């Protein structure tokens, strides 16, 4: 597996993630922009991702929900709004948390994400930069993810118990 490199730049308030893929740029772009393909890889293990809307053009929105299968049956939804699209090399979008009716709650933090797809022949390097408004905003993002992270940990415990049971 290719390794993900993560760096944080406090001055520019950015989190930068870099990763190589063993596929040409057209394929990586296709996997990022085709709803049926996105649904296959976006959500965490044991979560079902449904894309409710994918209007892939500047100003267009991408609305999705992730449903936990089993466990606490939690739901996490989000809306991405595309700001800039240069196929197949660049996309800029904002990402926000929402409820299941796709209403964005007030005072919710927004992240702006820029994805650059670098053509390396049979490989593609993807550089993704997430910019947050301030550390205070970021605190809210972290707090939002707390419940989800917690449930995933519980799930891992469940799996552990199942494994232990089958071994004994």
């Amino acid at each position, binding site marked *: *597996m*290719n390794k*993900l490199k*993560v760096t*944080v730049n*406090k001055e520019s308030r950015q*989190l930068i*993630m870099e*990763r190589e*893929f*063993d*596929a040409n740029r057209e*394929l*990586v772009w*296709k*996997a990022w922009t085709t709803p049926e*393909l996105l649904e*296959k*890889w*976006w959500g*965490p*293990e044991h979560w079902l991702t449904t894309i409710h809307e994918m209007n892939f053009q500047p100003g267009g929105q991408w609305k999705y929900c992730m449903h936990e299968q089993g466990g606490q049956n939690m739901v996490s939804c989000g809306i991405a709004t595309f700001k800039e699209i240069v196929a197949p090399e660049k996309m800029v979008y904002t990402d926000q948390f929402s409820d299941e009716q796709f209403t964005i709650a007030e005072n919710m933090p927004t992240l702006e994400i820029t994805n650059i797809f670098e053509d390396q022949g049979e490989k593609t390097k993807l550089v*993704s930069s*997430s910019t947050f408004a301030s*550390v205070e905003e*970021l*605190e809210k*993002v*972290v*707090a939002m*993810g*707390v*419940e989800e*992270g*917690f449930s995933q*940990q519980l799930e891992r415990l469940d799996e552990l118990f199942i494994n232990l049971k089958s071994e004994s």
Partner: protein
Amino acid sequence: MVYYTYMQTVDIFTALAEPTRRDIVEMLACHGELSASDISRKFRVSAAAVSQHLKVLRDSELVRVEKQAQRRIYSINPQKLDVLEEWAERMKQLWSERYDRLDKVLEQLKIQEKTK
């Protein structure tokens, strides 16, 4: 001043997943320092329950304790509350897994392209 920190045995997200503990952390962030009894007084739950929550927070190293005579004074452990660091760690976890799944989708796409 001597602060007692503990070995981290509970991760921050587990510690913060419980609403009362989130409130305690917020309270400490606002007030700076509070004794265990100050904290207890502000909640409807029993002192024993608050004391249990404080233990989890200590184990996560989110808070630190200073002993003054018979009193234990709690405050936020500023080193641990590096939101940026925690967030980066969390994003790394989320996206590593997400991109590993993307690898599999790309493998399938490559096979489809070849058989076209």
